[in-house]
């Protein structure tokens, strides 16, 4: 077998796969944040907590109701989405006329409350969630071992990300959403129910986080802090990609996951900070982000 800079290819490919998995979560989560920020003007700091909720709802469905992984993949995002809609109606909708900072503070507080509640009832040691039987095991590709579940995570996230992109960029509903992101007053003056559109958008963005949570449950243990750990990196991803762009947030998510993986191979000490270094560089050179529109 060939070697690259003294790195065995198994290690390189293994880390790239791991990077792609992390990138899948970055992409799905930063996509939801971008959609929410675009229309609601809210920096949704509760996103990590809602991702964690998605994983917990899947765990609860299995352990309290005997409902397995596949139904949970649909049900948990729906439940988290409805929870998000309740938050939007009761709390967030009062903040739209204020500065971004208020939405950030409110959702940050909500995140702490949600995480605190789960910590109180389930502790922090983490709960196991089994990989579904159909996705147990893996493929031996000759040069590396590919666990089926990890391949599934990458495929599922790609489908969801590009499905969302298609819906926003190519459909009539998406045209309403893009138009309302630019000028909600005028869209309302054409007879469109903009408050309903906003509510459903938040529900959808949050459901994406819930979906990522279900995907994550069998890989990472189901833990009240799982979202808090991830969300900081995801915000860095969003800053690098630029808040405004749907495709930008998707591509940046996968790209930074891979960069992180590569760093783990060539300079493991830097893997925890490489995304933040890139964020600092991007902010210096192109403050609106790689795909952002200057405002």
């Amino acid at each position, binding site marked *: 077998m060939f070697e690259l800079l003294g790195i065995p290819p198994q290690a390189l490919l293994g880390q790239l796969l791991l990077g792609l998995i992390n990138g899948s979560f970055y992409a799905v989560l930063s996509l939801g944040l971008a959609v929410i920020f675009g229309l609601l003007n809210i920096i949704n700091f509760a996103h990590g907590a809602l991702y964690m909720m998605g994983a917990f709802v899947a765990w609860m469905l299995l352990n309290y109701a005997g409902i397995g992984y596949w139904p949970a993949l649909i049900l948990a995002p729906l439940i988290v989405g409805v929870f998000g809609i309740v938050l939007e109606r009761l709390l967030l909708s009062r903040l739209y006329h204020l500065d971004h900072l208020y939405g950030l503070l409110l959702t940050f507080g909500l995140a702490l409350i949600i995480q605190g509640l789960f910590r109180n009832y389930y502790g922090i040691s983490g709960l196991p969630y089994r990989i579904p039987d159909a996705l147990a095991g893996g493929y031996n590709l000759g040069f590396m071992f590919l666990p089926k579940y990890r391949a599934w995570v990458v495929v599922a996230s790609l489908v969801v990300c590009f499905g969302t992109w298609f819906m926003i960029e190519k459909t*009539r509903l998406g*045209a*309403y959403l*893009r*138009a309302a*992101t*630019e*000028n909600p*007053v*005028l*869209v*309302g*003056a*054409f*007879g*469109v*129910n*903009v408050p309903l559109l906003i509510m459903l958008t938040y529900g959808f963005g949050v459901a994406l986080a819930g979906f990522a949570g279900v995907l994550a449950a069998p890989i990472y243990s189901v833990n009240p802090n799982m979202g808090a750990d991830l969300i900081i990196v995801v915000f860095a991803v969003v800053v690098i990609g630029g808040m405004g762009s749907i495709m930008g947030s998707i591509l940046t998510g996968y790209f930074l996951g891979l960069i992180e993986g590569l760093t783990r191979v060539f300079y493991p000490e830097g893997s925890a900070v490489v995304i933040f270094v890139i964020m600092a560089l991007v902010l210096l050179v192109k403050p609106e982000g790689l795909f952002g529109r200057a405002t």
Partner: protein
Amino acid sequence: MSDAQTANALLSVRDLNGWYGESHVLHGVDFDVQEGEVVTLLGRNGAGKTSTLLAIMGILGKRTGAVTYNGAETIAMAPRQIARLGIAICPEERGIFAALNVDENLMLPPRIADGGLDLERIFELFPNLRERRRSQGSKLSGGEQQMLAIARILRTGAHLLLLDEPTEGLAPVIVQQIGRTIAALKKEGFTIVLVEQNFRFAASVADRHYVVDQGRVVDMIPNRELDANMDKLHAYLGV
């Protein structure tokens, strides 16, 4: 104006007060628009013409008074409900969505009633748009943006069109095209309230002119009496 006229009016505005944030910009606007008429609001910059249109649509900050359309009182309605009665606006800044292409901009306003123009008729009125259907809203010239802003409110079935300075900043040949379009829309049966600075243009398309000054309607001049009232009008407009 006579009570009979008021009773028949498609749009009737009474004692309309409006606020833009903290500042009180409309101080009791009164006027009527009959079915099928083209009426202009003339006045100096800052007189309250645009604010009047925004207030009719319900998108000025706050409004009080009475605005009845087709017999329905709209003062407490949300803009989307007012739109659903059959009123549509073409705003001064045109409001073309940069992230949408021409087709998407055109198809954006939902249909609210039967009787809107079909796409074929719209492209007859605005042939330039047909060739640019796939172009992004941000890539259009000023004239194309203006045509698109008018075109997209024609297919929804809205019956009363509020046009805010459709000729502003456009080349004379495009101003003429928009003049012909407004005449054609009147023939199709649309009722139009037009805000204009350019009263030569206004005189070429309108039935009546309301003069707006300091947030009130101060005079009404039928178009056929415009020549006789030129001196008065010059004094109002300060030109």
